[in-house]
């Protein structure tokens, strides 16, 4: 099997990673360091890798991956990372997905302890056991266990929620179908979680310890035994018995182990005897202080020297030529996931490691830790040394002692941090960047803590660890997005008439999640401004049709429905007769306008409430909240029927003729169907309801039918309208038409700080006592109207604005200041702002709505509208620009 590394073909065997294949062919220098441009090679064998990062070039590509985690497949092309990776420029056509998984037991880690824990769970009869693992499993797994291979748990959260990343295709020999998602993010919910996340071997600090060929001892031994890597001549530098075992394994796999330097003295046990039997030179009380480079930048020799247990170099040393320096500085249990859910860690001086503190279970999830992740296991023959490295005295040596090679962070950096007075390990981490690289301090973290402790003369436990945070391994954004891309990234809600709109040139705007026609372009060249003028003119002079299906609709029913609506709306709904409709506003408890709409009374105990398009869900929740928490005694039930009902608005002087053409059994004359009356009837053969209501000031009808009939009724009305030159209009024309009449839009004229008074709607607010002198019932917000600030005379009030230059359109949001105000000295006293601004076909000029301090009493005054570097004078007017007496609404 051939793959390409830096343009060169490399032979690999099944089961190889890029790291093992490169080591087998003797490629030690793989990448260069991010800042210092030093050659770097493989340091580990798993996700603890801190040196040999590669960029994947083949396929979709990936900017930065540890070579120890990239399985070789034919055709793979990688290159060593020169410093930092770069995102591929080409768009990624791959699929990514997400899946949810629920289980009783989640085991993280497929080492011996993990597989054992899963097997035990099977034997105990526990159901739904999931084992998550990346890399080869330690042993066979019973069939009852669901194994997620090539999967890494990246986060563990409260209540048994785990997030894991599965790489599904990159190991496949055959090119997978494009339908197969390349990566999957699993969201796992487990009743209990077992962490068998293992431990990471630690490196040691000594000069030039970052040279290619300096590897963690366990990794070096596994490359020899599992992958058949021939190392040549090795030196093992260790602080615990696993280092001795690695030396034995290397020797038995055919590596010439020149020297074993162990910082400890008085070693006993089988491993020491076995090394002696093989004639291997074991130097007790020795460690490494430096390395020499070969031509490839890799290690050529290691300088060994006698040291004290505290790391003081005693000398004289000896330079031992070698190709491999196998380093063992002890082991750090992998407690990251445990700490994510609040698990405490504590320093175990006997095991020389931070271990999960299982005696203090303050966990937010049912989590147990097993195996080496918990520091479990028999005590070795020789206790491990509390030793983090030996550094000779000398100029610039500390700057060649690498603590976090992934960040090019050195002992000199650590000394600088401590010299600057930093004592918290969190501060030191941020000052030095140690532990912030792709490996997140898996090997460098405890090494830095140990060196800090040694410098400060305290124990590593007193220094403590930094905080581990998810994600445990880098998660590509594409994987996080999953299928939430393109059209699926945010739902597009459409009405029953949507396809007609598309067929007729609608340009859509998003309102909430709804797709609403913004305007209909009659030709490809028609501009929005021209289209809106055309649509407005049609409604004022002929007939227009608009899709109002997106308005929120709530069926409110029950014996107390009228009482309930009286409390919700500022005006009285209980006096509304069945068959009649009324416009109303509702306020929050603060007395500020929350939503508005038309309320239809269908029967004594039955209302149909309409809300703004964006306010539908909010109003329904508002109703339920009051009914469930404050007024459970009221027998009334609100039910959303927003999607149930499609609404066609037919507006304009010609609208009665059009409606009459589609309604056969209802008299829609002015006398029979008065303004704000409604009636059930068949509409073009569909069961429906016709309401006389107008948001434009013109004669207008709302045709409501079950949404199944929406498309048919729209098309029927359109057909009937052809004789009258019917024009479809969108939300922009609707906005202009209502603004000409001074009708507010909640959310456009309001921002949650306007009372009905401010909007000129005081006629909608019931008085505290009625004409007969009886107190009227309270409504939500009524008490807030007594607040001094709510009654203050100079609150901002709704006004109309006419720019002095009738062709000038003031941008919405423009600030209003006094004419002659000194704009160069800030802050300029602000008198108000523009909320809506349009060009009117009917008025043949521009106009605007605005909120102006004390505006109701300032009609006729001039203000300066200021926007950006520009400004324009405007005249304050009534917000009703058209037909103030309402003569047009009856047609």
């Amino acid at each position, binding site marked *: 099997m051939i793959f390409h590394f830096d343009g060169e073909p490399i032979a690999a065997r099944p089961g190889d990673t890029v790291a093992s294949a490169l080591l087998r062919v003797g490629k030690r220098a793989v990448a260069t360091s991010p800042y210092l441009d030093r050659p770097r090679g493989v340091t580990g064998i798993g996700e603890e890798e801190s040196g040999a990062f590669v960029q994947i070039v083949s396929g979709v590509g990936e900017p930065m991956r540890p070579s120890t985690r990239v399985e070789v497949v034919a055709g793979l092309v990688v290159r060593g990372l020169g410093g930092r990776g770069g995102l591929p420029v080409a768009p990624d056509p791959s*699929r990514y*997905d*997400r*899946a*949810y*998984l*629920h289980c009783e037991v989640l085991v993280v880690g497929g080492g011996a302890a993990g597989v054992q824990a899963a097997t035990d769970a099977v034997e105990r009869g526990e159901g*739904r056991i999931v084992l998550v693992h990346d890399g080869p499993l330690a042993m066979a797994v019973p069939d009852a266990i669901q194994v997620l291979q090539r999967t890494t748990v990246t986060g563990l959260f409260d209540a048994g929620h785990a997030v894991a990343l599965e790489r599904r295709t990159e190991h496949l020999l055959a090119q997978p179908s494009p*339908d*197969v*998602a390349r990566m999957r993010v699993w*969201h796992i*919910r487990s009743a209990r979680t077992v962490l068998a996340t293992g431990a990471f071997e630690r490196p040691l600090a000594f000069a030039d310890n970052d040279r290619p060929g300096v590897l963690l001892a366990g990794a070096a031994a596994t490359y020899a035994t599992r992958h058949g890597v021939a190392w040549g001549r090795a030196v093992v530098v260790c602080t615990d018995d696993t280092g001795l075992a690695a030396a034995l394994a290397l020797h038995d796999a055919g590596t010439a182990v020149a020297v074993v330097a162990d910082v400890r003295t008085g070693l006993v046990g089988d491993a020491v005897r076995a090394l002696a039997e093989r004639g291997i030179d074991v130097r007790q009380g020795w460690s490494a202080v430096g390395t020499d480079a070969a031509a490839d930048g890799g290690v050529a020799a290691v300088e060994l020297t006698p040291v004290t247990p505290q790391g003081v170099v005693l000398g004289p040393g000896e330079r031992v030529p070698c190709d491999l320096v196998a380093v063992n500085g002890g082991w750090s249990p992998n407690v990251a996931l445990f700490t994510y859910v609040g698990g405490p860690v504590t320093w175990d001086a006997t095991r020389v490691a931070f271990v999960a503190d299982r005696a203090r279970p303050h966990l937010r999830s049912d989590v147990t830790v097993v195996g080496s992740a918990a520091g479990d296991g028999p005590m070795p023959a020789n206790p491990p040394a509390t030793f983090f490295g030996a550094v000779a005295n000398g100029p610039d040596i500390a700057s060649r002692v690498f603590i976090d090679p992934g960040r090019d962070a050195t002992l000199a950096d650590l000394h600088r941090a401590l010299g600057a007075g930093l004592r918290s390990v969190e501060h030191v981490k941020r000052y030095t960047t140690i532990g912030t690289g792709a490996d997140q301090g898996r090997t460098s973290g405890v090494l830095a803590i140990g060196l800090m402790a040694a410098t400060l003369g305290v124990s590593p436990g007193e220094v403590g660890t930094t905080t581990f945070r998810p994600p445990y391994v880098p998660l590509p954004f594409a994987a996080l997005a999953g*299928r*939430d891309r393109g*059209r*699926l990234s*945010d*739902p*597009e*809600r*459409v*009405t*029953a008439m949507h396809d007609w709109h598309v067929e007729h040139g609608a340009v859509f705007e998003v309102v909430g999640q*709804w797709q609403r026609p913004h305007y209909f372009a009659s030709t490809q060249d028609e501009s929005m401004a021209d289209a809106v003028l055309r649509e407005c003119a049609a409604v004022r002079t002929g007939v227009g049709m608009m899709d109002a299906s*997106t308005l929120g609709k709530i*069926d409110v*029913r*029950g014996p107390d429905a009228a009482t309930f609506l009286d409390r919700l709306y500022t005006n009285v709904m209980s006096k509304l007769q069945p068959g009649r409709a009324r416009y109303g506003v509702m306020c929050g408890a603060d007395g500020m306008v929350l939503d508005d709409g038309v309320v239809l009374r269908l029967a004594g105990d039955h209302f149909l409430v309409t809300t703004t398009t964006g306010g539908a869900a909010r109003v329904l929740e508002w109703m339920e909240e009051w009914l469930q928490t404050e007024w459970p005694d009221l*027998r*009334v*039930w609100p*039910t*959303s*029927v*927003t*999607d*149930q*009902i499609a609404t066609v608005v037919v507006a304009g002087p010609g609208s009665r003729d059009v409606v009459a053409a589609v309604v056969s059994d209802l008299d829609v004359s002015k006398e029979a169907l008065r303004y704000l009356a409604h009636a059930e009837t068949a509409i*073009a*053969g*569909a*069961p429906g309801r016709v309401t006389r209501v107008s948001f434009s000031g013109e004669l207008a009808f709302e045709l409501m039918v*079950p*949404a*199944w*009939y*929406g*498309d*048919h009724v729209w098309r029927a009305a359109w057909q009937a309208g052809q004789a009258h030159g019917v024009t479809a209009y969108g939300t922009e024309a609707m906005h202009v038409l209502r603004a000409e009449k001074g009708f507010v839009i909640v959310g456009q004229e309001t921002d949650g700080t306007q009372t009905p008074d401010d909007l000129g709607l005081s006629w909608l607010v019931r008085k505290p006592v009625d004409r007969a002198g009886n107190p009227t019932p309270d409504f939500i917000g009524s008490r807030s109207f007594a607040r001094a600030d709510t009654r203050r005379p100079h609150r901002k009030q709704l006004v109309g604005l006419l720019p002095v230059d009738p062709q000038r359109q003031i941008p919405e949001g423009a600030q209003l200041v006094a004419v002659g105000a000194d704009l160069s000295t800030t802050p300029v006293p602000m008198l108000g702002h523009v909320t809506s601004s349009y060009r009117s076909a009917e008025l043949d000029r521009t106009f605007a709505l605005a909120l102006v301090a004390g505006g109701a009493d300032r009609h006729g005054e001039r203000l300066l509208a200021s926007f950006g570097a520009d400004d324009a004078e405007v005249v304050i007017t009534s917000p009703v620009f058209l037909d103030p007496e309402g003569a047009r609404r009856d047609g």
Partner: protein
Amino acid sequence: MTVELRRSPLAGAAWGDAATVAIAEVPFTPAVELRGHGSLQAGAHLPEDVGETRRLRSRSTFARRVCCLGPQWWLVTGEPDDLTLVDEVTALVDEVTAPVDEVTALVDEVTAPVDEVTAPVDEVTAAVTFGSAVDVSAQRTRIDIIGPRWADVLRHVWPRDLATLTVDTCAQGLLGRAQALLIREADDRVAVHVRASFARYAYALLTDAATEYA
């Protein structure tokens, strides 16, 4: 009412193969939301646990089902051609004083047989007096996921545990980013009820989630 004039949100769209997984709209399913108050406990046979459903025997030949969506909150659904469901069920509210035997005959399972009810007759009447019955047939559309791999598809877009969605139970939640009600109709059939305006999104999402299994 002219049923030929109707158009469902997905126009009866269908995708895939039920041998693995198929996704198909079941257009025009009638549905009524019932909200009740008072002494429903005495009514005994309405499902009271959220997620529980009951099949109803009706005087017509159609299968009907009532799902408990929340405390005193039910959805009655039926088969597409069951054109009388809405009127019959909404009559439960309109005819508050309907005789007990007539109501029980309408939905046998809803109330206990009269002779088993020890409460006075007027209380039993109250037990089936719903506060509100609203026709929501067009509010949602029904998209069925059919075939042995239905759960593989749903687990991509449905965060809740599908193992608890046993036959004849229902669950509410988010399907991707849209509110949905799932009813496990049979071993290898789940009905997804989504709001009509979200139907195209839900269908696109489900067919996308099913890509690997078809």
